[in-house]
């Protein structure tokens, strides 16, 4: 009896196992044709006092004040009306940063002709990464000035409070090379400070996806502007 049940269940099990491997391949295709990017992060539903349909409040980037590699103060206003890609790194990071910044550079190269797209890299080691260090790092990467790609610093606590709002985990950790543990997430932010995509900056395939998603968001922004006029 047991063996006959085994016989009957085995093909089912194998099929299920097979589909685990097959299904992601199918869903990838669907993702590529996405026409509207999702809103990422926790959302809040607020009932309206007049009893109308409740408002959905999406997670958004808080107000910030940072200093970039040219010594200029930058705030949310610097990114107003544009979309931007944000990440967290540090100049002496020996582990994932070079790969991340290499991938960020690939996105930058693709969109450098479009002034609607900006880039923001925050240092998580502000004690070491002074403005001259950030400028040297940026220039070594081939970024001559901060007109499109900001390498930014701020007091330690400011940076570490911002990181989770961009879906990046960052913390001091003497166990890892370089002294900081952090995830290599890139966050795509729309003109209303909402997160519209999070990508692993160490995975080429995910950054390919970001490169595909950016024009989708830019189309949405263009339509929004047309409506507002």
């Amino acid at each position, binding site marked *: 009896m047991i*063996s*006959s049940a*085994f*016989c009957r269940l*085995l093909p089912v099990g194998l099929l299920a196992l097979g589909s685990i491997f097959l299904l992601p391949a199918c869903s990838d295709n669907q993702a590529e044709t996405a026409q509207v990017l999702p809103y990422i992060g926790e959302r809040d539903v607020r009932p309206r006092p007049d009893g109308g349909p409740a408002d959905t409040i999406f997670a958004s980037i808080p107000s910030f004040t940072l200093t970039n590699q040219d010594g200029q103060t930058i705030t949310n206003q610097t990114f107003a009306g544009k979309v931007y890609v944000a990440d967290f790194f540090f100049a*002496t990071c*020996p*582990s*994932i940063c*070079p*790969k991340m*910044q*290499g991938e960020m*550079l690939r996105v930058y190269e693709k969109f450098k002709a479009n002034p609607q797209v900006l880039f923001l890299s925050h240092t998580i080691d502000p004690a070491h990464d002074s403005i001259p260090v950030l400028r040297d*790092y940026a*220039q*070594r*990467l*081939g970024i001559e000035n901060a007109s499109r790609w900001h390498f930014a610093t701020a007091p330690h606590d400011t940076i570490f409070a911002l990181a989770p709002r961009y879906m990046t985990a960052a913390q001091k950790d003497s166990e890892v*090379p*370089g002294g900081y543990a952090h995830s290599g997430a890139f966050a795509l932010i729309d003109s209303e400070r909402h997160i519209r995509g999070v990508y692993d900056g*160490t995975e080429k395939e995910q950054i390919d996806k970001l490169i595909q998603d950016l024009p989708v968001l830019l189309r949405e922004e263009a339509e929004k502007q047309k409506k507002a006029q």
Partner: protein
Amino acid sequence: MKSPARPAQLLRLVAALALTGSIVGCFSNRQNEGARLYESHCSSCHGTQGEGLKRLIPPLAGADYLLKNRAALACLVRKGQKGQIIVNGVDYNQVMPPADSHLTDSQITNILNFVQTSWGNAGEVFTIREVSEQLRGCGGSDGR
């Protein structure tokens, strides 16, 4: 009711497949150790094709540094590197972390030989003895 021989046959097939897989694994593991270690320890910075990154991270593909500093390469991998270095006429100034201490002399040999023979590089390969000797010079040999 079906014959009970069927699941047994299937099991045997699965076992045989698993065994074949692990035997193949045994051979290829050791053979490609340099490539695998390069991938896990070096490629994040130096790139999967040894291309480096702009003026931040020096390339390994076609790097004159490998020829000019052959005798110092094992210790460079073991101890890391700090301060300015010139590779193909370009100055670089990043910190390279030391190799994890659990890398044996033979693993460092395999990494170096992967670099010496990849991406068009045709550097002279290292013997384990040569690498151990270099590593003894910087107190970094584990004799394995």
